[in-house]
């Protein structure tokens, strides 16, 4: 038998999550975790921080060299804040990637679709109505907040979808975003009305609107965790379906899929994740655009890599953005939404130009 040249096809591997990228994502999370814990108004040695993190593993008792006060700062103040940043960033990036796949629209993002505004209206309603009701108003958000945020988020995404569909079959990516802007404005008006009616809660609502990572405690982490797990499981389970949906609904149907069912499932899951993130952290924009697009550029167009990498890099991005927010402005913290917008707005323009050129 004569030797044959190995065809190029045999050396090309199918799209999917490469081990190198996964390791990179885990490393980014670890770097963000240690940096987020070590730096701040009181600097802690990164080595001691890493040892204390290991001490959180049951059965491990190592000497970190940190004082009891430093350990308290680490575990009670900074750790919940950094963990919440990782969770919220991961959720917003995952939701953004899922929306982009579902709507086949590179500009889709929890904020641009109006989902965050819907969740915000839900949260404002709960804060305002709770203040109106007799009883104590604790510093922690009530557990019902994510549910109200979820209802608002679903209402918003449904409205945006319907309004975007009114443009007919020839709708462009921009049509859906215009619909999202209109829905956001409408829901924001509702939110303003509620705030006007309950001026006694203005301060609480505003502090939440500017981002609540500043007051994060383990309570917030526990509120968001179950929603984060549900969202991540559902969206990640649909990662191959999202790849198939890129060829269009009709061809996806021909390939044996139920595109509409996958789409509804993903929208509900992404909206749930957005609602959970918004309910504990306020309105933090652009994470859902910046992170998935960067992953797409670096690791390729398959959702099998974009989705898991968005979770990891989205979490790391927001934890680091929060570090910048609390250290760059001197004594006063910069709201984290300002930091993400600072990076996100120029990025959005680049994505818009690319999508119009495509």
């Amino acid at each position: 038998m004569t030797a044959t040249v190995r065809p190029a096809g045999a050396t090309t591997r199918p799209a999917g999550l490469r081990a190198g990228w996964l390791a990179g994502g885990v490393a980014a999370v670890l770097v963000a975790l240690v940096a987020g814990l070590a730096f701040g108004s009181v600097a802690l040695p990164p080595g001691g921080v890493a040892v204390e993190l290991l001490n959180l593993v049951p059965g491990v008792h190592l000497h970190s060299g940190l004082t009891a006060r430093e350990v308290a700062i680490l575990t009670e103040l900074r750790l919940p804040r950094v963990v919440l940043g990782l969770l919220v960033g991961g959720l917003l990036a995952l939701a953004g990637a899922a929306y982009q796949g579902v709507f086949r629209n590179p500009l889709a993002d929890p904020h641009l679709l109006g989902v965050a505004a819907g969740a915000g209206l839900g949260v404002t309603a709960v804060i305002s109505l709770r203040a109106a009701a007799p009883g104590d108003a604790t510093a922690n958000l009530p557990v019902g907040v994510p549910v109200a945020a979820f209802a608002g988020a679903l209402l918003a995404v449904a409205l945006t979808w319907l309004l975007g569909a009114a443009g007919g079959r020839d709708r462009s990516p921009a049509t859906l975003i215009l619909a999202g802007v209109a829905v956001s404005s409408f829901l924001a008006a509702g939110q303003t009305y509620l705030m006007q009616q309950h001026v006694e809660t203005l301060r609480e609502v505003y502090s939440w609107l500017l981002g609540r990572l500043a007051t994060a405690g383990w309570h917030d982490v526990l509120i968001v965790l179950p929603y984060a797990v549900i969202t991540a499981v559902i969206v990640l389970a649909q990662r191959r379906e999202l790849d198939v949906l890129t060829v269009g609904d009709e061809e996806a149907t021909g390939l044996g899929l139920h595109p509409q069912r996958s789409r509804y499932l993903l929208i509900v899951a992404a909206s749930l994740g957005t609602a959970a993130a918004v309910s504990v952290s306020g309105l933090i924009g652009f994470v859902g655009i910046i992170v998935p697009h960067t992953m797409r550029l670096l690791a390729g167009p398959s959702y099998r890599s974009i989705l898991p990498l968005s979770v990891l890099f989205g979490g790391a991005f927001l934890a680091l953005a929060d570090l910048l927010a609390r250290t760059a402005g001197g004594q006063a913290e910069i709201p984290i939404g300002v930091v993400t917008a600072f990076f996100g707005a120029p990025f959005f323009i680049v994505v818009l130009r690319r999508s119009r050129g495509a």
Partner: protein
Amino acid sequence: MTAVLARDLRVRLDGNVIVDGIDLDVSRGEWVTVIGPNGAGKSTALRAIGGLLPFTGTVELNGTSVDRLHRRERAKTIATVAQSPTVPPGMRVLDYALLGRTPYIPPLGRESAADLAAVEEVLESLDVARFAGRRLETLSGGERQRVFLSRALAQGAGILLLDEPTSALDIGHQQEVLELIDRLRTERGLTVLMTMHDLTTAGEYADRMVLLAEGAVVAAGTAREVLTEDNLAKHYRVRVRVIEGDHGPLVVPVRG
């Protein structure tokens, strides 16, 4: 054995009747080409048979009603290539062809070595394996058409529905693609049902032809039976000369 059977097939789109009660039979291994003027309902009928549009009437694939086939089973039985398939941005040829294995991959699962082997065999057979790592948008029209076909063949379906597979190609590439389809049909025992605008070429390759006009079958049979000057004048509203060629009638439009 009948591979595709349609009885009283009707399709309404946005309230308009597009396909108005057609009957169609395609035997296993046969090549049937549906022709007709623009708006006759060719593509719509094809999409309905492929299970991509809601319809009334009966469609049976290999003797089983499509209503009784699960989506995945249907995708293993019949594969459709649309007239202008969507080219997903950035997707590589191998990944696109692998989408054809979707009906074989369980929910939450991933491609097996067997899926990969099946796709590599198809890519080799269509002479596109050397493009496996290239992005679809970098390929020429003819190469891209072969990649679309490879995705359909990867489905492992015995029935191939092709909607205007050569409309975007020059005559050289048209012939190349049609010869390729004919070879695959023989090698793999495929049944081919397609739509086409080029009447002469359609007649040269098809075993039988079906002429649709205003959603109904107005002529059916061999190319010689369907491609008559009268039929074409009546339904295309055009003056043509039909000349006997080596592989079937040659249709030449003449100025009226």
